[in-house]
Structures are given as structure tokens and as C-alpha cells.
């Protein structure tokens, strides 16, 4: 009995520690809240890298969330908020860097790699087909010789 209680207690305690970062922000509409939530999930925490500022417990992430909320309540658009944060912390915080000339390779590399791979596969397929055809198709002269050879073998078998 005691053990069961202890087990249940431990389960409850363990779920508590998994609770998300919960700041209480009030929004005028659910859309606005969703916009805010999406935005902070796309921003990277400069301190605890590989976490977004929505999940991070770092004080700096909290400051960033607060500033984002403050600006949004003041009527700023998503881009304005993101730009303001990038001005302070650099493009490092963007999980999705802007598509421009400078970041072109960053975005295009996967597409280029897939394209090159496709070209290679197509090349291999075409070449193997061509080889297969050149093997099966004999010149009339070769055909005649082959038939002669086969006929000889038949005769040898019978005799």
C-alpha cells in the first residue's frame, strides 16, 4: 500500500517537472495569442542554444518574451518585433533566416543537392539501358555466327 502511494506520488512529481514555461500573458484574441506563440517558437535563445525562447527558462529568453509581448500589445507587427530583437541579438536568433542574396546558398543547397542526385540517377539509368541494348542487339553477321554455333551444338548432342 505504502509502495503504491509512493509510486503514485513519484509519478505526480515527475509530471510537475515536465510542465512547460508558463508566463501569463493576456491577449485580446486567440489569433493574437497564436501569433505570439508561433513567433516565440521560431526565435532561438542566445544563451541556451538549441532551445527556442518559448521553451527556455533562461532569464534572457524571458526578457525577450516580455519585450515581444510588450511590442505586440503596442501594435507592432510580427516583422517589427523580430527585427527589433535581431537588432539586439543578431541573426543568430532566427531559426528561419530571411531569404536574400546572402542566405541564398543556405536555402538552396538542399534543392541543389537533390537536383544533382536526380541527375546522377538519371545518368546511371540511361547508361545502363544503353549498355543493355548494345548487348542484346547483335549485328547480322554475329547473329549468323551464333546460329551456326548453336546448330553445331544441337548436332553434337544428337550424335
Amino acid at each position, binding site marked *: 500500500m505504502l509502495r503504491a502511494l509512493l509510486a503514485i506520488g513519484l509519478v505526480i512529481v515527475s509530471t510537475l517537472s515536465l510542465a512547460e514555461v508558463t508566463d501569463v500573458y493576456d491577449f485580446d484574441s486567440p489569433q493574437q495569442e497564436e501569433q505570439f506563440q508561433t513567433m516565440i517558437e521560431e526565435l532561438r535563445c542566445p544563451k541556451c542554444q538549441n532551445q527556442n525562447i518559448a521553451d527556455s527558462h533562461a532569464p534572457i529568453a524571458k526578457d525577450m518574451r516580455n*519585450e515581444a509581448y510588450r511590442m505586440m500589445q503596442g501594435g507592432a507587427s510580427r516583422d517589427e518585433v523580430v527585427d527589433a530583437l535581431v537588432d539586439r541579438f*543578431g541573426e543568430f536568433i532566427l531559426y528561419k533566416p530571411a531569404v536574400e542574396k546572402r542566405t541564398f546558398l543556405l536555402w538552396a543547397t538542399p534543392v541543389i543537392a537533390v537536383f544533382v542526385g536526380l541527375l546522377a540517377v538519371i545518368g546511371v539509368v540511361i547508361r545502363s539501358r544503353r549498355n543493355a541494348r548494345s548487348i542484346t542487339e547483335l549485328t547480322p553477321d554475329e547473329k549468323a555466327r551464333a546460329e551456326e554455333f548453336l546448330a553445331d551444338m544441337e548436332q553434337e548432342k544428337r550424335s
Partner: protein
Amino acid sequence: MKRVLLFLPLIIVLGLGVVLFAGIGKDTTTLESALIGKPVPSFSLADLHSPGRLISNDVFKGKVQLLNVWGTWCPSCRDEHPDLLRLAKQKGVSIIGLNYKDSRDEALTWLSRLGDPYSTSIYDPKGTLGFDLGVYGAPETFVIDASGVVRYRHVGVVNQKVWEETLLPVINEAKGNG
């Protein structure tokens, strides 16, 4: 030609190896400041020593200075403190202190007990100037030129090595241009 193509995967793997190897052991936690080449964000904050006195951007005008972001809650700040004292007292470097997210009493106790390397101390309990500067982990040390423009940011402890190899060259360059 076909023989050469056979070596292509090997060449690609070697190339990737070199690129990835170059990244091993690299410090990914220090970021370049987004403010390099830009003026220090405008601020008006109280003096740590005299609460009634306000400090603004004018404090950065006139000469090349260091701006050191610190707090009594930050163990690495304690670590670099003797080095900052040495720079201020022996090398005559002008260091402005930004007391970041701290309490005034604790900060003053720290300075009176360990010594005060700062020519001016800005008190930023809410971290507003720190936030505008993109401070993400104290200690951070900025090199500010004579016109109040950020030239460099060092994240982490300032020691003899960092001073000689990193900060001093930037300061000399800032002096040359400013």
C-alpha cells in the same frame, strides 16, 4: 575519365571531413554582437554610487573605453574582477561598469570590498540597457570608441590573454581611427 569519376565519392568524403573537422572544438557559445559599428543604444540610468545622478550616452564620448557588464550574482565576474582592477589601476584603462540585474546594496558592498575598477558605474537593475545591448550572459565586455560606437564585444571572462590578444588590438585600432 571513368577512373577519375570513381574517386569522386572519396574526394567528397575528404572535403566534408575537412569542413567538419574544422568545426570541432569551436566555441559556439560566443556570438558576435549585432551592435558592432552602431552607437550604444540611448539610455538614461542612475549612477550606482549616487542614485540621484542620471547617466546617459554622453559618458561614452571623448575617448575609447571599455564597458563591462557585471553583477554580484555572476561567479565569472568575480573571477575577472582582479584583472579589471589591474587594467584600470596599472594600465590606465577607462572602464565603465554596467551593474546588470543586481541590487544596489550588494553591488556597493562588492565594490568596497574587492575594489572599484570602474570610472563610472551605471545601475541597471531591470537590465534594460543590457537588453538593448544584446547582453545574454554576464560578464560581457564591450569596446566603445571615442564617438560612442561599439567596436567589439567579448563574452566571458577578461584575463591577461584576452586583454593582450583580443581587446588591446581592438582598442589600438579604435584609437587610431577615432
